[in-house]
């Protein structure tokens, strides 16, 4: 039995969020043969964001899905190849210095790999959550909030995503309970101001969800106050869950140096501890978790990957002026 020979590329990118799409743009412009794999939706987390208000250059905000599509078009214009497939495994240094990327659509051999798989929203892990997903349990208010017009809903979390999506639900819902396990929010001040000023939003502090209940659809939540231990029942038609993110790095365990949360350690050039393997965006340690930061990471990783390929495999770099070279010039 012989498997099909792996396809050969200069650079393989894993994940089509802002980090991966920007890396793809730079890699393609450096004339590196580059392919980007995405398992779900172009744009990553921003694909379901109604308004991105903090990406420079768009003073009126831009729809997240549209921004992702625009980034893809821009990168493809310069020759980036896109493929929709699951990356199932990676074997670093599989053939000399080249890395093997295994996907649901076949195997790929790359001189450099840029990991931009980002992070997914955490699940609460409570009873009823899985069974009622799609029936009132949601991780995307912009997708589902409209189905709860004039009904009461709950939003779980205290960060930017919880406030942003919670505010979005109030376009439809008659009331949005914000359930947060602490007594203050982590969200940026501007979102906190908007949330506190919104008459439809009511805050339920120091409280966790213990179970989601209902016959075929969400009908009520069982809550517990973590300070007093008091339990209560909150009747709602939907629960929108935004309680932090877990990086998509399960397949990298034991292969790259990761922190306890699963983020890849990198230096300022986005280099991991494996030569020729880069990590950028929310997958890396100390990410600012912003679209513009992820895009910047992606550019940095691609520029470094381009130079890495030149130094390890020969040929001239194609990404243009490099700071270290400029600094050492006569």
């Amino acid at each position: 039995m012989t498997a099909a020979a792996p396809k050969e590329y200069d650079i393989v990118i894993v994940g089509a969020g802002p980090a991966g799409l920007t890396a793809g743009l730079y890699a393609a412009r450096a004339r590196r043969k580059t392919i980007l794999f995405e398992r779900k939706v172009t744009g990553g987390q921003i694909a379901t964001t109604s308004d991105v208000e903090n990406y420079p250059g768009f003073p009126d905000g831009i729809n997240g899905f549209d921004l992702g599509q625009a980034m893809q078009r821009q990168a493809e214009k310069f020759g980036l190849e896109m493929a929709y497939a699951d990356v199932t495994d990676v074997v670093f240094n599989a053939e000399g210095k080249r890395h093997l990327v295994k996907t649901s659509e076949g195997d790929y051999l790359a001189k450099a790999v840029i990991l931009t798989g980002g992070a997914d929203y955490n699940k609460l892990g409570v009873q009823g959550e899985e069974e009622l997903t799609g029936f009132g349990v949601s991780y995307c208010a912009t997708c589902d909030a409209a189905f709860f017009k004039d009904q009461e809903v709950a939003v779980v979390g205290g960060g930017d995503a919880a406030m942003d999506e919670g505010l979005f639900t109030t376009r439809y819902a008659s009331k949005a309970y914000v359930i947060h396990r602490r007594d203050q929010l982590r969200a940026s001040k501007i979102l906190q101001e908007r949330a506190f000023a919104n008459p439809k939003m009511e805050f339920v502090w120091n409280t966790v969800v213990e179970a989601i209940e209902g016959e075929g659809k969400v009908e009520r939540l069982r809550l517990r106050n973590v300070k007093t231990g008091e339990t209560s029942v909150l009747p709602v038609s939907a629960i929108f869950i935004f309680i932090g993110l877990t990086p998509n790095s399960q397949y990298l365990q034991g292969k790259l140096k990761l922190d306890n949360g699963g983020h890849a350690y990198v230096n300022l050039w986005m280099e991991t501890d494996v030569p020729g393997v880069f990590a950028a965006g929310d997958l890396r340690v100390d990410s600012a978790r912003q679209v513009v930061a992820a895009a910047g990471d992606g550019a940095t990783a691609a520029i470094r990957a381009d130079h890495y390929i030149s130094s390890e495999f020969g040929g001239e770099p194609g990404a243009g002026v490099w700071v270290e070279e400029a600094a050492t010039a006569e």
Partner: protein
Amino acid sequence: MAKPSEVTDATFDADVLKAPEPVLVDFWAPWCGPCRMVAPIVEELADEYAGRVRFVKLNTDENPSTAARYGIRSIPTLLVFKSGEPVGQIIGFRPKNDLKKRLDAAL
């Protein structure tokens, strides 16, 4: 290309429930990012299953009563109907191969 045709609250009975062949209904709305991602895949499937399965789409904003009738609370949702009865349901964005598997299972 066999583009999925639009159905509405008014035409749902005739176009979907009374259709002689199985029908896949794509419940979507213009503001839903993942729906826009599913749409081109549904179009490709419409081509591949032409003659065997009818593909239609229903805008949940404009046709809330059909969406409510089938308890749609999350989009994109794809429902497969046979002889007027829903026999398969796919909630959320799925890659094309996954969609095909689930569609085949429902047929």
